[in-house]
């Protein structure tokens, strides 16, 4: 699991690359929580994710809620179809602000 970060205007874009499962979850959670707590809007770009386990989805939701509670906007973009199907079937999708693409999300997130 690789996590990269870059800025697009005031939005912190976080790229997740690889598998998010119970093995990679604890470290990823810590890293994502730090990135999400910077205060500004955050966009998680999932387009390079190959697998997301049940533990992985929980990490995403925890980070999302932590950011929300801290008053930061957070959105997901580029969810691969297979992961999206899992998120829809289990209801996880309903919890997030979701955009089809990074570009679309930036429009929503830019203050």
């Amino acid at each position, binding site marked *: 699991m690789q996590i990269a970060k870059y800025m697009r205007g005031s939005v912190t874009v976080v790229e997740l690359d690889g598998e998010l*499962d*119970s*093995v990679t979850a604890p470290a990823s959670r810590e890293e994502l929580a730090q990135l999400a707590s910077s205060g500004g809007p955050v966009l998680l770009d999932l387009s390079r994710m190959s697998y997301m*386990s*049940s*533990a992985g*989805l*929980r990490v995403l*939701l925890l980070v999302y809620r932590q950011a929300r509670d801290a008053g930061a906007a957070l959105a997901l973009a580029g969810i691969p179809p297979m992961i999206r*199907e*899992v998120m*829809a*079937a*289990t*209801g*996880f999708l309903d*919890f997030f602000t979701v955009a089809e693409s990074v570009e679309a999300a930036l429009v929503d997130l830019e203050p």
Partner: protein
Amino acid sequence: MSLSSLERIDGNPTSTIAGLGVRPGRPVPFGATRVPGGVNFSVYSNRATAMTLVLFKIGQSEPFAELPFPPEFRIGGVFAMTVFGLDSDEIEYGYRATGPQPPGVGDRFNPDRVLSDPYAKMIGGRAEWGVPPDYFDRYVYRARLPMEDFDWEGDRPLRLPTEDLVIYELHVRGYTRHPSSGVAAGGTFAGLAEKIPYLRELGVNCVELMPIFEFDECENIRVNPVTGNRLLNFWGYSTVSFFAPKASYAATGRYGMQVDELKNLVKKLHAAGIEVMLDVVFNHTAEGNELGPTISFRGLDNRTYYMLTPDGYYYNFSGTGNTVNCNDPVVRGFVLDCLRYWAIEYHIDGFRFDLAAILDRAPDGTPLANPPLIESLAHDPVLRDCKLVAEAWDAGGLYQVGRFPGYFRWSEWNGRYRDTLRRFLKGDQGTIGEMASGLVGSPDLYGHRGPAASVNFVTAHDGFSLADLVSYNDKHNDANGERNQDGDNGNNSWNCGAEGHTDDAATLALRRQQMRNALLLLLSSHGVPMLLAGDEMARTQHGNNNAYCQDDPDFWFDWQLAERNADLVRFTRLAIAFRRAHPALRRRVHPTGRQRDGFGHLPDVSWHGVRPYEPDWSPDNQLLAVMFYECDDACPTRDCVYLVANSHWDTHEVQPPAPPPGLRWHVFANTGAPSPDDAYAPGDEPVLTDPDHLLVGARSTVLLVALPAD
């Protein structure tokens, strides 16, 4: 590691077994439970002399660790161990149980087998529907630990009054597996969730799901002689694991997320005002008889979990090889734990118990007057608001409809109502009196318990669908591979003039009318109506009245019928809406014929014939009319409806009774009229133009409603 876990002084191992840190576990709760730093494993066996915990990485055939329980880890008949440092998301676990030598009568210990935990909350290894497992593998149905942190967002069970329910019985896979369903993941919990708008529009407020506990659809060894295809156990009345949802009913089962997916379905149904009732099969298990597979119970404690003959063989009151020993105190606890789990963890609103008469048999099979299991369930604090519905018979000849020990709490599938309605519909003589009883909630059966004790139905998964009930005189089960020997022979069905498919317009018209008669009588009877999914669109099973093994496009729910038979869907929807609009049809207590004091009141029920207040109870009469009147204490509205059911082959002219003062009769439904005049939406019911002369056509049902004259 969080502070709270550091604060405990039992958060560390006391010894090491097979390279893993362990300490004596907690005997309760049974099953595998996440605890700080590890997982607590607890399993019961009264007869085992030794027990070993077997741990696998997910999907691996060889275990990565085997941990014998040290003697000091056993308390009473329970083996308990906490194991530290496990990634609970990545493991599957099971047990090996060793028994005494020589074996006692009924012992079936075999330490070569890895046994599934009876309390497994999730089963791995069976995520793909219809793919047979490797039965030579020593561990096929593999216990796993789900996350149990679903976010319900405030959802609670709906607690709808039982008498207000309209139950819709469906098969999770069959309902959306057909390509015509149009859902993303056909045949799954997620697929069903996509059909919630349809359910809402239809107006049902409770779905009863045919078995969703983990079962093995591949256990069926028969072949369809017509197609040569392998048959399955499509319905799944053969439980492998009672705490685990069926993985292959989840689009996400291959990712081990069936628990979340099912919970999400329940949450969404609740948000739509629809309760969820589970069809639970506690009468037997998938382990079968002496020749069946050793999966879990029989290898752990055969003598506790099953009813055994004095020689140690299986009693077979279920017709499937074994019988769960429901009134053994340990098994009672198991059943209670299981139902509580589904009520607490999944917010389930009610349970329908398959072959429930078995639940009141003693360990030797004798029916008990006060069966402790039934009583425990009736009075359980957690289950207090759950509906409990008994299929009050079993395959051992015990038939308890109207006599099931219900503790003023249980309802029953009213098999008598089904038989009576069917016989009345096809024009059998001598059914008027019983039909009348059925219309008022069968007080002859449930007089002490009220109409809600009676779950009324004309069709259910067992037997013909409604379309087949009016299209076949005889069952046609050849495709089941038993030379048409399986399935019930007593169907009380009538094909309306031709067996099966026909192009004869008059026959087809009569069938449509008969289906409407059945639906209208069912939905205007006191008690709890239950519809078989698909009957609202004339779904056929081609004359097969025992379709348990037919996982086939011809048997899946064909959604194209919703358009083809849109008029019947509309009729059903309106009849449901009418029921929900009229409290006179949904009483909590049986009507008695008494009349309130005061001007203008009518009896709560009155019986009529072709002339008002002159019912004809003679055996050769086939016309029955009833008026229901409801006026609650505050009396803001008077609710009055009048129903005429004519199962005779001739038209009759009927004079309805006078409606309450100031009201006029309007026509809600007339099954003898072509669509769309067969039923009207609330508020659109036309006034009955000639209130003294109502023509009720041959084999027709008319339902009038009294509305203010404006």
